[in-house]
């Protein structure tokens, strides 16, 4: 270690949200005058670390030293006082105020911001309301506002994700200029090429821990990806073999002539751009993507939560025009969403939650056949091994059990296509395995399953086939056995165009 004092030194930071441990023991050291990248797969803890450093949330434990002195960062205002200026992933411009009002709200001089923007070769009408300013420009205004404080450390949380390449170039120029002036930048991104091109060092997070700090070099993507994956990747494959649930099994081909359970043709909607694919009965089709590549919109459109702006969806051969989830459910297309609390009635019992879709039609508002309902619910509970001891209110169940309830609901009510959006997020390993096995069993019984996950290790375990999305388009269609993490991660980062077509 050099004798110079580090600009920022975070040690052993931990933060948990309920049962989910977002940060376990994260370390981060940033030297003066360096551009430092913070990398990690989805859910590795990047955003949580940034929020802790900027005072938006407080850590459960750990220390932060700024210029060698212990610093307490209790609010965004305190962070600003000690020279940290963040540009958050969520826009910090109030939509109903004009840009100049927004500047006044934060006590920033509009003239100074305008000056910074001009230095970036940008012009903004400050009397525009923020909601009328395009998102990329909002990010640039956020950046300019942060720059007016001449911060010792500028934190950029996925700023380039929403930017076209010409604006991204200007962000890199800003980082370059900061470095020249002895200022530091913490740069969070999913784009490894950017890291290699413009960062001095990179810290890689995995499962809430900093697993490596390195100097990224040309052609060093592989090493970074390795660190992001960790040794668990290998172990997971072994587990897959043990489970016997791997995609290596030879699946019986779907009967010829049968219409696919789900056929998507030229679909547009939200970020989804011209997507076409087929999902057959008995098949588990994976969808792998970085955050915000259109997977949310795809699942929302298929499940009737959002209207498509173009294209056609066919469920079991019939055109599905879903204006409400009810329409999709009737057509046999059901959703298991990422956020269990979105799908569940937290204050109601397991039984009521499982049975809920049975009564969603006007014609079934009459008396309930309690015996029939009880039998169906019990069968679903047993099929999923739901621990029903705290069954009076599902909010008192563990996360894994809650997720099982959201799946049990559709077992009890019937479906042909299940859309699983990150069904194993934040649940324990044992339950995860149960869910993998269950999904496979459902497929063997003739169900079609569309499966998105933020954990890449799951794809080869669970899926017959995997699509990767980038920028709202399908970039690769891989057989499940070939969808190891390294391949997926490359395809998801747009690094492996050559392998895209199978």
């Amino acid at each position, binding site marked *: 270690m050099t004798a110079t004092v580090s600009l920022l030194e975070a040690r052993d930071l931990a933060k948990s949200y309920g049962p989910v441990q977002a940060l376990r023991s994260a370390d981060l050291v940033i030297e003066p005058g360096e551009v430092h990248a913070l990398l990690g797969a989805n859910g590795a803890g990047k955003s949580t670390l940034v929020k802790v450093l900027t005072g938006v949330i407080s850590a459960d434990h750990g220390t932060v030293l700024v210029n060698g002195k212990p610093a307490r960062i209790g609010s965004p205002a305190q962070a600003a006082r000690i020279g940290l200026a963040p540009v958050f992933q969520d826009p910090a411009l109030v939509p109903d105020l004009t840009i100049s009002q927004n500047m006044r709200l934060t006590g920033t001089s509009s003239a100074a911001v305008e000056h910074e923007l001009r230095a970036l070769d940008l012009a903004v009408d400050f009397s525009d309301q923020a909601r009328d300013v395009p998102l990329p420009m909002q990010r640039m205004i956020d950046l300019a506002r942060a720059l007016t404080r001449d911060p010792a450390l500028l934190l950029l949380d996925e700023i380039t994700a929403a930017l076209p390449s010409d604006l991204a170039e200007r962000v890199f120029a800003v980082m370059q200029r900061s470095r020249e002036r002895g200022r530091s930048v913490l740069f969070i991104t999913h784009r490894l090429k950017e890291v290699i091109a413009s960062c001095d060092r990179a810290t890689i997070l995995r499962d809430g821990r900093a697993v490596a700090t390195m100097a990224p070099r040309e052609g060093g993507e592989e090493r970074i990806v390795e660190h992001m994956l960790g040794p668990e990747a290998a172990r997971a494959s072994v587990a897959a073999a043990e489970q016997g649930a791997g995609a290596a099994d030879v699946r019986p081909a779907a009967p010829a002539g049968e219409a696919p359970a789900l056929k998507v043709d030229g679909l547009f909607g939200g970020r989804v751009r011209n997507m076409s694919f087929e999902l057959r009965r008995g098949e588990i089709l994976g969808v792998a993507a970085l955050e915000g590549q259109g997977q949310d919109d795809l699942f929302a459109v298929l499940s009737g939560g959002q209207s498509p702006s173009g294209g056609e969806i066919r469920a079991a051969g019939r055109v599905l025009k879903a204006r*409400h*989830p009810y329409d999709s459910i009737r057509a046999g297309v059901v959703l298991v969403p990422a956020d269990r609390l979105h799908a569940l*009635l937290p204050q109601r019992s397991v039984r009521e939650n499982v049975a*809920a879709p049975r009564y*969603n039609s006007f014609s079934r508002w*009459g*008396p*309930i056949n309690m015996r029939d309902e009880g039998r169906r619910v019990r069968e679903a509970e047993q099929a999923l091994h739901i621990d029903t001891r705290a069954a009076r209110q599902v909010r008192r169940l563990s996360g894994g059990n809650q997720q099982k309830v959201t799946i049990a609901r559709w077992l009890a009510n019937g479906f042909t296509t299940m859309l699983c959006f990150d069904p194993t997020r934040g649940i324990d390993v044992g339950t995860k395995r149960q869910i993998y096995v269950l999904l496979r069993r459902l497929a063997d019984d003739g169900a079609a399953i569309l499966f998105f996950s933020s954990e890449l290790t799951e794809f080869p375990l669970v899926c017959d086939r995997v699509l990767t999305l980038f920028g709202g388009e399908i970039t690769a269609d891989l057989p499940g056995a070939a969808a190891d993490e390294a391949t997926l991660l490359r395809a998801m980062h747009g690094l492996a165009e050559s392998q895209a077509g199978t």
Partner: protein
Amino acid sequence: MSTAPTPTRTPRGRWSPRRLATDSPASILTLVFVGIFVGTDIVNRAQGGGAFLTLKQISTTFLFAAVLGLMSAGQTLVMLTGGVDLSVATTATAGAFMISRFGTEGSPKAIAIALIVGLGVGLVNGIGVAVFRVNALIMTLGVSTITLGLLTVQAQKQFTALVPSFVVTLGSGRVLTYVPYDLFVWVPIAALIILGLRYSGIGRMIYAVGDSPVAARLAGVRTWQVLLFVYAICGLLSAAAGILLVGFNNAADLGIASPFLLPSVAAVVIGGTSIFGGLGGYAGTILGALILTVLDSLLTILNASQAVRQIIYGLIVLGLAAIYAHATAAE
């Protein structure tokens, strides 16, 4: 495979007042009801008014409570969906007025008209809230204003006011000395609501929509249908309450039901139904209505003014809502 369920902490093992209050509010409420009844008895004796804890007074309490009970029945359904209906009092007034207005044409016709008017008001509320998604408070308050205006216009016209004797008997009579006739209306409706909330599809949907509109939607529930139904039923029940009320008073004026508005909300809140919807039921509301009725008797004995009553009811709603919000935030 680790199928052995991990030991989660079950709530059953622990005992705490809060848990008892949230899990079985009825037991606490019954205690409160008995307690306040005994308290009223003591106060009444102290003031030289004699015993209050008599069969006669218990009977009278149930007789009085039926009107509030019916009005807060509709309110319970609406609040279970996460809304509130501020037109219940005016709707009850409309029901009462229709009885008096059309009493000369026989009680079946008068009762039918009263109920249809109530249903109509409820439907208008429901259309505004469910279809046009107007804030429930504003919609029902607006409809209440409109209804009262229309009633005032009607009241100025020439007609022979008559409350049919059947309605009078229903609203104020007793059978076997101690059993109020209005229980013959209230008890079946109460049974229907309690059983319906538990054992019917619409009951489940009412809880679902109130607990989480997003989750209900994901389960395929068209929430507007449920809301429309609930507001319509609330109008109907309020009109029924108005019929009993006009039978009790034997005359209708346009302020007849207005003192019941806040108590209708308070009874529901006291009964343990969450103001955010999705939790609670009508059994608690019944006890809430009984408690408020005895409380009202107590305040009468103490010579409390309308002002004091209003303040007390307001503070009860505020206090219970705060306690409830605190309890749910703590979990």
